[in-house]
């Protein structure tokens, strides 16, 4: 499901901030820009961007989803790498969209976009060849393995970066391969199963007493965080980009 891309990747990039960062998690998008700029990237943020189309794609409304994807294609023009601080939105670009455009005449445009889309950690480690991160982050961090990283190099890349930070302790927890239960519309249409999955995930994470929960996808963190907050468990969440940015400051 993951495409081979030319490396080293260009540092002249377009940022796809994702709708969740647009609506809720502005600091994640901001941290992403700061991290990319630290790496010497020139960040272009196409103003007309909205969403990758994943909500409708997963819900089965491919007509609606294609409409949104087509809008995205018109916004992210050119051949700069498209950097996405979300495993699932990136996978929408390089996998999901290919599925729903299989029989569409504009499939080549989707393929072109797929071929230059990178999830953030994958871009840093495999696109730019950066495997060591400067600064300090003296905390215990549990890293949630977001499902859309399966079959991509992003999970390994994130671990490489985190483990290279001075002072950090990445703590493993039980049943890490299990989904948190978000799944977009799934969390709404199957609320009881979703809840049970989320609570199981939270139990496993809290068991190892981390100071922070980290992930590469704000969808997962919206869901896991929502349960943590509803149950007043008080565990703060950070996107990988925020840890990298904070390490630079530390």
């Amino acid at each position, binding site marked *: *499901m993951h495409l081979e891309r030319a490396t080293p990747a260009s540092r002249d990039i377009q940022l796809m901030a994702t*709708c969740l*960062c*647009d*609506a*809720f*998690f*502005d600091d994640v998008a*901001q941290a992403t820009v700061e991290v990319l700029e630290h790496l010497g990237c020139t960040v272009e943020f196409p*103003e007309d961007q*909205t*969403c990758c*189309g994943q*909500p*409708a*794609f*997963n*819900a*089965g*409304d*491919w*007509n*609606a*989803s294609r*409409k*949104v994807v087509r*809008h995205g294609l018109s*916004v992210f023009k050119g051949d700069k790498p498209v950097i996405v601080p979300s495993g699932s939105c990136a996978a929408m670009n390089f996998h*999901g969209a290919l*599925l729903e455009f*299989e029989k569409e005449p504009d499939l080549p445009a989707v393929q072109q976009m797929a071929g230059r889309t990178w999830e953030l950690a994958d871009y840093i480690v495999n696109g730019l060849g950066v495997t060591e991160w400067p600064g300090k982050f003296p905390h215990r961090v549990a890293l949630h393995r977001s*499902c859309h990283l399966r*079959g991509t190099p992003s999970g390994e890349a994130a671990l490489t970066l985190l483990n290279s930070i001075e002072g950090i302790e990445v703590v493993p927890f039980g*049943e890490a*391969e*299990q*989904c948190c*239960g978000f*799944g*977009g*519309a*799934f*969390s*709404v*249409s*199957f*609320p*009881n*199963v*979703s*809840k049970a*999955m*989320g609570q*199981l995930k939270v139990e496993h994470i809290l068991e190892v007493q981390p100071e922070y929960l980290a992930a590469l996808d704000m969808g997962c963190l*919206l*869901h896991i*965080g*929502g*349960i943590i*907050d509803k149950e007043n468990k008080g565990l703060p969440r950070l996107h990988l980009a925020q840890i990298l940015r904070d390490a630079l400051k530390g």
Partner: protein
Amino acid sequence: MVSPKTFQQIDKTARDMERGVHDSIHNGAKVTSEKRYATLWHDYPDPDKLRELAGKIKQHTLEHLDEYLPKAEAALKGNGAQVHFASDGDKANEIILKIMQQNGCKKMVKSKSMVSEEIHLGPYLEKNGMECLETDLGEFIIQIDDDHPSHIVKPIIHKNRRDVAKSFEREGLGDYNDDPETITRRARQFLRHKYLEADVGLTGGNFVSAESGRIVLITNEGNARFCMAATKIHIAVIGIEKLVPSDRDLALYLNLIARSGTGQQLTVYSQFINGPKAPNQPDGPEQMHVIFLDNRRTDVLASDCREILRCIRCGACLNVCPVYRQAGGHAYRSVYPGPVGAVLSPLLAGSRFPELADLPKASSLCGACNEVCPVNIPIPDLLLRLRDKGKREHAKAASAGTPPMGMYALLASQPHAWRGAMVMGKTVDYAPQALMNIVPAAQAWTSVRKLPPWRGGKFRHWMKSRNKAG
């Protein structure tokens, strides 16, 4: 915490499940998943490469079924077997009944066969005056309980030994005793006589080599062998997708299926059946009949979900699936539960697709099923394709509880409106909801989770202000 309201049957089943049943399923699935992982990764440096290869060989076989099926037929006939083709379940049942009637048979012993469940063979034979006894311990318990299997490999994963002990006591198979060894001993004692009394042994087939016509059967109880030991006739009813090109390929599949299904290196018994009793052999069935069943498999082959026919029925996707672990197999209302069932069952349902169109929705699309599948079926992709099909065909079961996407798509393709909605999100209700696609069911979200504060437009503002400053 109050259980959230739900419109989906699988979600309801999970919500209403008794704790004890839930724990049996959850723990059983989890433990087997862990065993699978340990065995595969202990024995092979890169099991994923094996899964990919096994997937390719199966896919190749399916795409050349028009060549391999006649080849298998010829080889089977050469071995002395009689070959039948059944276009659907009714035809297969008729063929089986006819074989029994023509040979004056009354009693059948049956080794576990998913296909016979699929075509409802047991009830059909009983209706026609035949006795049909399940001999796989789990299936035997299902039969005496008048229950349905809830797992492909472990049909009674939803029961515990106390449940089984009660059933045995009720059926007059001894006093209450929930010691597994005692239960097994009692079942064995009961079944041994039945094997001797039976005229026909019915099995499925895990693999059929097109090259040699060898049928491969794997079991852990040896019951498939007993079904053929004393009976005059062996009938194997097999889906047309069970072919592999040659005997050589079996090494790969036998090594994968046991490790994937139960975490064993090999199952206890692997049988290679080369035909009926040869003249110089003292025992064995005098007749062997092989029934190749289509039952809409060629329709599936012609669809954009054909990869699902690679499935070798190991059950690994059920065990790893977080939804299966919460809802169990009965929730899927079909013979094939779990992720594989969520794809296969609606497809095999034909015109009854709308009734099972909710099955492909019962997934967070986490991809764990794909990751463990010994034939590397891209199950999440197939679930998505069936979601699209359900939507296009207006299947009500599929759309129940899923928010409509029209408003979201409209907003997300109009950048000015989108930016406005971002800033206005706090006051305009539809904005955040359309974004998160929780329009009619915001309550379903917030009854178990909190939403973070709305910060729409903040990032755009920051980006703009520093561009100006720069």
